[in-house]
């Protein structure tokens, strides 16, 4: 650019008598598209060029010398991007993952061989390996897997329902409620401590158990507590409970966003533990 500026200063001070001299500063020479964009630009015809000299420096040539060549100055380069899909895995279960590393190694080996077999080329060519980026697609949480987790949740729901049904003569609803509190606290610990995807189906199964147990026992408790005192208490519970499905996502989302998942599950565990006190207050016949 500086060379052209110097030439432009000379031309500006000695303007041509005939014709014109234009100085073109062109974008994007490095990405094989800048010259084409300029030539195809609607304003290019305004230059009405008879001669066009594309200036470029060449290292290794004596200072103050000018070399001219008609036509192409350098070989064009053509990029190729290979996108590889791998599969993530925990460090302890490498056999479940697919690493692109060995594929990359093979590609490099083969391109090196291409590069040395010059008889394959019609013209002067040079092949270089330039690893810009590799895209590894994460397959851990695809839809099919999510469906699988929900299946485990249903298994949890059904199995605990069967268990309660088989033992319904012996079960006490307040004991079921206490165990549900215990399971919920365990659940929050399990979520925080689970460090690999293979645990997740079991956590979902536990979630199914908890949901199912909750519905069974709350209905059971409703049948059990028919005293006037408890009826008022239950109505209060149920009324207050109706607002929870609305508040819960808001509060949970806020806590997760501000303090993270671990804090949320800690709060969850504490709140659930507190419910043991209310269970103690309910007077069950059985």
């Amino acid at each position, binding site marked *: 650019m500086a060379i052209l500026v110097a030439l432009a200063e000379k031309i500006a001070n000695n303007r041509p008598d005939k014709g*014109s001299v*234009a*100085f073109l500063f062109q974008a994007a020479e490095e990405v094989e598209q*800048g010259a084409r964009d300029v030539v195809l630009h609607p304003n290019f015809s305004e230059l009405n060029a008879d001669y066009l*000299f594309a*200036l470029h420096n060449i290292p290794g040539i004596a200072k103050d010398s000018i070399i001219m060549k008609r036509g192409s100055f350098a070989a064009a380069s053509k990029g190729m991007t290979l996108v590889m899909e791998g599969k993530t895995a925990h460090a302890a279960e490498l056999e479940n993952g697919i690493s692109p590393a060995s594929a990359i190694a093979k590609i490099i080996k083969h391109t090196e061989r291409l590069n040395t077999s010059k008889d394959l080329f019609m013209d002067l060519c040079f092949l270089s390996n330039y690893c810009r980026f590799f895209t590894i697609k994460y397959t851990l949480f695809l839809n099919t897997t999510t469906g699988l987790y929900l299946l485990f949740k249903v298994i949890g729901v059904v199995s605990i329902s069967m268990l309660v049904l088989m033992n319904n003569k012996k079960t006490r609803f307040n004991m079921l409620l206490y165990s549900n509190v215990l399971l919920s606290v365990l659940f929050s610990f399990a979520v925080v401590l689970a460090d690999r995807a293979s645990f997740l189906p079991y956590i979902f199964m536990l979630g199914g158990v908890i949901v199912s147990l909750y519905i069974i026992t709350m209905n059971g408790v409703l049948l059990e507590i028919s005293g006037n005192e408890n009826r008022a208490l239950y109505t209060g519970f149920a009324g207050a409970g109706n607002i929870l499905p609305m508040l819960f996502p808001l509060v949970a989302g806020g806590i997760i966003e501000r303090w993270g998942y671990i804090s949320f599950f800690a709060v969850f565990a504490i709140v659930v533990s507190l419910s043991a006190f209310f269970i103690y207050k309910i007077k069950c016949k059985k």
Partner: protein
Amino acid sequence: MQEKNKIIAIRQHIHRFPELSNKEFKTAEYISSIMMNLKPNRHISLGKTSRAFVFDGKEKGKNIVFRAELDALAILEISALGYRSLKQGVAHLCGHN
């Protein structure tokens, strides 16, 4: 000599502030301000950053165009030069400055 130093200063300024392909906005602005000082008869925009500056003769005749490039490369410059690139990972290592 003074003329030569001015050109060298321009080269070094461009070298300090390299820009990647199709994003040569500051470079185009800088070159434009220098070229407009030379009072060309016409200036033509040929894209986002590509510019041409034309010095017309009194009569019609052959039209000559000289071309230089605006863009730098995405390479980290390792050098002790006083005018080395101030942009991490971008440098005029193809000599377009």
